């Protein structure tokens, strides 16, 4: 049919059904109304409205500058402690992940109850936020590095086992079958058939979790779990803003450097 034959009056269908259009419009209107309401409400709660809090913010920020460079030598040590915490926690978690991930992969663990138990325990583990873990362990073991490391181990275990377990489930099972057929036992099948397939991803995940752990260990320090976070918390409590600023700058630089290196390595791996 040529274009001329379609008269202007002939009905063309809508791109979406009318009902969908109405629904989407209502949802958007509701979301917009929520925003407007919460802006008004927040402004009402803030002393003197937004304008005042903005100028107040300016005042506080001014107090942070200039940072106190002279404390740099003194904060290297807690910074190093934070990195050490992340290294230890990531290493232990990486080792513990291997059996857990294999047990939570249905293609390797053919014993159903074992698979479900591991799955469920790992899911429960993942629901606990790292801060809560740190608060619990600080309560149990007192302020210091040890509870921080424990919190990080459990926190990273949840992430790693999930990521790694799913990688294991996605491998090509054919070579594993070939090894099983040649009389290899389960350890040999895993080591020869599975490990070469998942090693690059595994290394990449461990590095990624290491990045997360550096940042997390700073936050954990705030609740008393050792490292640079503890120093930052102390300086803030003493209203020693120039010192706190220096700590923040150091954390910023270290995190960026570590993330840069780790990202480069991960790019090379995959």
């Amino acid at each position, binding site marked *: 049919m040529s274009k001329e034959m379609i008269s202007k009056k002939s009905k063309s269908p809508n791109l979406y059904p009318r009902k969908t259009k109405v629904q989407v419009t209502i949802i958007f209107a509701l979301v917009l109304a929520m925003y407007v309401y919460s802006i008004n409400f927040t402004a009402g709660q803030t002393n003197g409205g937004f304008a005042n809090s903005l100028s107040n913010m300016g005042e506080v920020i001014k107090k942070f500058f200039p940072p106190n460079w002279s404390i740099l030598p003194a904060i290297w040590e807690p910074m190093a402690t934070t990195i050490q915490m992340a290294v230890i926690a990531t290493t232990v978690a990486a080792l513990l992940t291997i059996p857990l991930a294999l047990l939570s992969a249905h293609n390797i663990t053919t014993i159903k109850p074992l698979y479900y138990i591991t799955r469920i325990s790992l899911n429960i583990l993942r629901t606990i936020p790292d801060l809560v873990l740190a608060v619990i362990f600080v309560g149990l073991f007192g302020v210091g590095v040890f509870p921080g490391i424990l919190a990080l181990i459990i926190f990273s275990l949840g992430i790693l086992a999930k990521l790694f377990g799913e990688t294991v489930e996605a491998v*090509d099972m*054919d*070579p594993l*079958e*070939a*090894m*099983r*057929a*040649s*009389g*290899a*036992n389960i*350890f*040999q099948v895993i*080591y*020869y*058939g599975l490990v*070469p*397939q998942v*090693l690059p991803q595994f290394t990449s995940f461990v590095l990624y979790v290491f990045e997360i752990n550096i940042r997390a260990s700073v936050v954990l320090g705030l609740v008393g779990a050792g490292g640079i976070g503890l120093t930052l918390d102390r300086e803030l409590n003493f209203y020693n803003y120039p010192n706190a600023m220096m700590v923040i700058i150091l954390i910023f630089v270290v995190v960026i450097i570590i993330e840069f290196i780790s990202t480069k390595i991960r790019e090379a791996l995959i």
Partner: protein
Amino acid sequence: MIEFKNVGLVYPNGTEGLKNVNVKINDGEFVVIVGLSGAGKSTFIRSINRLVTPTSGELLVDGENILEHKGKNLRILRTKIGMIFQNYNLVRRSNVLKNVLAGRLGHVGTFRSILNLYPKEDVALAYENLKRVNIADKLYNRADELSGGQQQRVSIARVLTQQPKYILADEPVASLDPPTSHQVMTYLRKINKTDKITTIVNLHFIDMAMEYADRIIGMRAGEVVFDGPVSEVTDETFEEIYGRTIREDDLRGGASDQ
């Protein structure tokens, strides 16, 4: 010797993979199993090394009923039965030598193999076998750098390195082009004759079955419907096995270039 005695296999979903199979395969034979896809060829072959487990009857390998085997006994059984697969089943990220050495896993202890401490003679054997299938120059190439035909030759070298008494090949040429298919079948045939390894091959190409087999077993719907030397086989035999007239795609074509 492999002997099927009234072997039946019902899969958990109710499908009958094998129905009352009675077959005796003598040492040194080159047997080709033919049949349409779904006829039970794979189930037949995989029963012998217990990748699947028949649900009734007896399956004797060297006089032992293997249907009861589990754990260590099963692994010992599997070390004397090598297997070749349609998709080569190599570890794609590992190099050729390491893939071939994997054939020794059943013979080498867990610790030795995990630490890569293979006996010198095992490594020498792997290298010899790579030479036999004419691919020794790819020793350190990763398996995924090789063509399909080359990968299948590596998997033949792996099976040889296992030093099995039997070789099972499950559609070894289904993913290859005609010249490469003939090359692979020629290697299998040569190994059967020189090493006296009993070889059982699944094929659905009639012309290849006729060219390489000593004996043909025809299967349809889980049952053995023909069993005899290749000299007794005619076009009518295949029409009976397939339950229809022979078509162009039942033939691989491209006569052997070896």
